[in-house]
């Protein structure tokens, strides 16, 4: 799966939002939601973008779809730079890239039946022949686990999980190459979440789909991804294959993120880092490495020198000065430096 041809290449993407203020309402500053990020997505793989709220992961997803016009950078999808495309040409391209949102209820028109919703999407993108439309829609609905008898129901007649299936059906109906899942399973109860995740995996195999999966849930991410991008304050901290990221996280932030998740493993208690303080404001992000204000291992250089992403092991890139010479064992490092890693205690 991994190592297929590059489907999407994001280069130096910047997405700033102006903040207006003062007497005349001029732009006085920017929220640097996404600040110079670059990554690739290969055909048929699932790349996840993870991070806490405000890290820019959702904005990155929206920029790929050009729901926001990026301030800078290239979004090369299937050989075409979307960032430079005219709105009209972009609208056509949106058939190739679809998005599934967190709240399926808010993203479905409450006055349209499932059939109408999906038909509209297909009409706009002019997929398949009009004559076959009804048959096609039934087929898609069956693919996502809904029945023909539910075709004329309205969104409110479905449960949360079923609505998310409708969202998936709508995305699927225009035969996209890439689907961006923006917190697509976050609002669902775990038992339903598992059903939807299985569905996404099944569809990926069946239709050779490529996913950009945006989520804050690292358990879900571990299950579904091939590669993972960790973002913090608009910047990429680490890009790594799933195995590498979870087995030997290269960035202290990744390590802290992983160790913050409450564990259901009662038999083995691990040591953990609890980060202090809040994420700084993306309006005035810290100079140097954006993570240095919360990083327990920060050295002086981190305060003024922004570390670039560099490879620390095969398929693992980290933006951290400490990892310059390779992967760092944070547990032993913290012992050396006599940091007290907060024990996982009862």
């Amino acid at each position, binding site marked *: 799966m991994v190592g297929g041809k590059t489907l999407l290449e994001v280069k130096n993407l910047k997405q700033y939002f102006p903040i207006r*203020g*003062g*007497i*005349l*309402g001029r732009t006085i500053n920017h929220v640097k939601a996404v600040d110079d990020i670059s990554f690739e997505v290969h055909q048929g793989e699932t790349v996840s973008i993870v991070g806490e709220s405000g890290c820019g992961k959702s904005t990155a997803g929206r920029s790929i779809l050009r729901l926001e016009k990026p301030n800078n950078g290239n979004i090369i999808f299937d050989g075409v730079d979307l960032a430079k495309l005219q709105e009209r040409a972009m609208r056509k391209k949106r058939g190739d890239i679809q998005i599934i949102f967190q709240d399926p209820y808010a993203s479905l028109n409450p006055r349209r039946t499932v059939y109408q919703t999906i038909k509209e999407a297909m009409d706009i993108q002019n997929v398949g022949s009009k004559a076959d439309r009804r048959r096609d829609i039934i087929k898609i609905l069956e693919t996502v686990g809904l029945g023909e008898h539910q075709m004329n129901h309205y969104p409110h007649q479905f449960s949360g999980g079923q609505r998310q299936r409708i969202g998936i059906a709508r995305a699927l109906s225009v035969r996209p190459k890439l689907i961006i899942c923006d917190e697509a399973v976050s609002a669902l109860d775990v038992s339903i979440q598992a059903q939807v995740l299985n569905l996404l995996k099944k569809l990926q195999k069946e239709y050779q789909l490529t996913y950009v999966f945006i989520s804050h849930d690292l358990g879900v991410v571990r299950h579904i991804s091939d590669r993972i991008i960790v973002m913090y304050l608009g910047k990429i901290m680490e890009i790594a294959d799933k195995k590498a990221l979870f087995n030997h996280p290269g960035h202290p932030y990744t390590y802290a993120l992983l160790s913050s998740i409450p564990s259901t493993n009662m038999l083995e208690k691990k040591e953990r880092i609890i980060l202090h303080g809040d994420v700084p404001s993306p309006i005035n992000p810290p100079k140097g490495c954006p993570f240095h204000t919360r990083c327990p291992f920060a050295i002086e250089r981190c305060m003024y020198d922004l570390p670039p992403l560099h490879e620390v092991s095969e398929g693992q890139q980290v933006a951290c000065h400490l990892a310059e010479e390779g992967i760092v064992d944070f547990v032993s490092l913290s012992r050396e430096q006599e940091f007290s890693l907060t024990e996982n205690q009862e």
Partner: protein
Amino acid sequence: MGTFIVRRLLQAIPVVLGVSFAVFMMMHLLPGDPAIIMAGEAAQPAQIEQMRVNLGLNDPILTQYWRYITNAIRGDLGTSIRTDMPVRNEIFDVRFATTVQLALVATAFSMFFGLIIGIVSVVWRRSFLDILLMLIALLGLSVPNFWLGVILINFFSLQMGWLPITGWGTPAQMVMPALMLGIGGSAVIARMTRASMLEVFNQDYIRTAYAKGASERIVIFRHALRNAMIPVITVVGLQFGFLLSGAVISETIFAINGLGRLMIQSLMNRDFPTAQGAILVCSLLFVLVNMCVDITYRFVNKRIDLN
């Protein structure tokens, strides 16, 4: 906060200019020629023409407007055709204060009763009392105020002889005009307060207050009321504006010498400068009140600062 007030003041400038322009144009669209009125019905065409030149009525309309507005900024609103007094004096000597007083008394009245009725119906929500009060409020909203004025006069003055029919100044004289003007407002405020309070009661922080062990009284007055007031303030501000227009009717009915009556009289008399001045001052007052509402709103609702 300071920035906000300055910005809000600057935003008011185009509104004021627009309003003054609209008023000016409307006056020009009205039938009747000020030159003929001033020169007298029996004047010769040459005299009328001379009057036109004197008044500057032959200039292009934009020039006239510009002259009017620059004079107005300096405080010169022209001269009344009827009384030959400066319009400024006509408006500000007595009448302005009277009308503002009337509007304030009516507002105070509508807020007092509106809030009490609103809170009472919330405290005993879904009870018979609540239904009754809201029915009364609906009635108060639906009754045309000129009709109400006549009924009030009939009852309080003619039948009971408790209150004087006309004039303004003594508390007794204020009761009926304020009642007539304020009753619609208090109905609106009562309904708004009730709806807004009920909405606030569904908020999470009200549950937090109960979870602290707060009594019903504290929850209502300290937690709910202040937050519920935010939309009510807007309504009160708007209501104040309507009171200004309502003043035209109440001042006529109760023979109160205020701005509203001045407006009517000067229009009837084709006293264009006075009418124009009175309407302009009323509009400015309306803009000013709305601005104050915005500022208060902002002050009460700190959350808006975020955006």
